[in-house]
């Protein structure tokens, strides 16, 4: 199942790129196509942040992940690079758990 997702996902993502080189560039003249493609990552990445912070199967929970994300926000405000943002989130969550402050 994981392999199917990996290969099928990769194939589709590649074809999206390839079609751009094959299809006529006039498609870009359609404002609807441009604005939807620009907005899709914003809506979906934001949904992913929310679900991965609070989701636990079908329930919503508050745990150490929220603290990790809050620290990530601070790191982003301080213009920290990607790896630092991810690391401080992981370390804060791990520390809270190690000291039994959060689950």
């Amino acid at each position, binding site marked *: *199942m*994981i392999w199917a*997702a*990996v290969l*099928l*996902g*990769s194939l*589709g*993502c*590649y074809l*999206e790129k*390839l*079609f*751009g*080189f094959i299809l006529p*560039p006039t498609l*870009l003249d359609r*404002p*609807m*196509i*441009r*604005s*939807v*493609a*620009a*907005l*899709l*990552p*914003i*809506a*979906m*990445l*934001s*949904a*992913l*942040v*929310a*679900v*991965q*912070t*609070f*989701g636990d199967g079908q*329930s*919503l929970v508050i745990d*150490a*992940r929220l603290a*990790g*994300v809050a620290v*990530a*926000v601070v790191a*982003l405000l301080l213009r920290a690079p*990607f*790896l630092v*943002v*991810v*690391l401080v*989130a*992981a370390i804060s969550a*791990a520390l809270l*758990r190690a000291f039994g402050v959060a689950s």
Partner: protein
Amino acid sequence: MTNSPEGSKRPITTSAIGIGLATGAYGLSFGAISVASGLSALQTQTLSLLMFTGASQFALVGVLGAGGGAIAAVLTAWLLGARNGLYALHLAPTLNLRGLLKPVAAQLTIDESTAMSIAHDHTTTHSRHAFWATGISVYLLWNIGTLLGALGASAIGDPAVFGLDAAIPAGFLALLWPRLRDRTAWAIAAGGATAALVLTPLTRSGVPVLASALIAVFAGYRLRDRT
């Protein structure tokens, strides 16, 4: 150094390597997060070699790891990758490729190579050089980063203990952050997150993120004359 009016290509190459190194660092976190989400190191590396578009890769492993199932994971990755097709449409006239270079350039068409190509579009030569140099540099370093991250994470245990489960939303947030440039972007981000949270208890895992795409489609339709 050249005295031609277009200037040297060397600074472009230098920035391309810098961007590659930065991307390699987040390849490292992708590798670690993917393995923590339950993929093998080989599956993780395959994603970086074949899919090669960061947000889609993070999304695929995030949805799989949360138990969202293969179909939702694949659809989420495709929707997030749609913008690359748009980049390719935009780049095609500048790159003006024939034969086998087309499928190669397609694989290298991502946020970074497109942005660099557009940033240097004062001459076609520079724009093309920026695309290829950035694309190749990011491809190599993203894959090396993935390998190191995946092998590193394979060596440690339960992701919750090490806080890797908090690294996943932090990673998505870092990808989202530079896109939150105006009020429209903030409103759409708020809409996407709210819709996903409301739907989480009501639908099976994986659906809420897909549903958030509808918000982008609706807003894109409403705003079609403003962008």
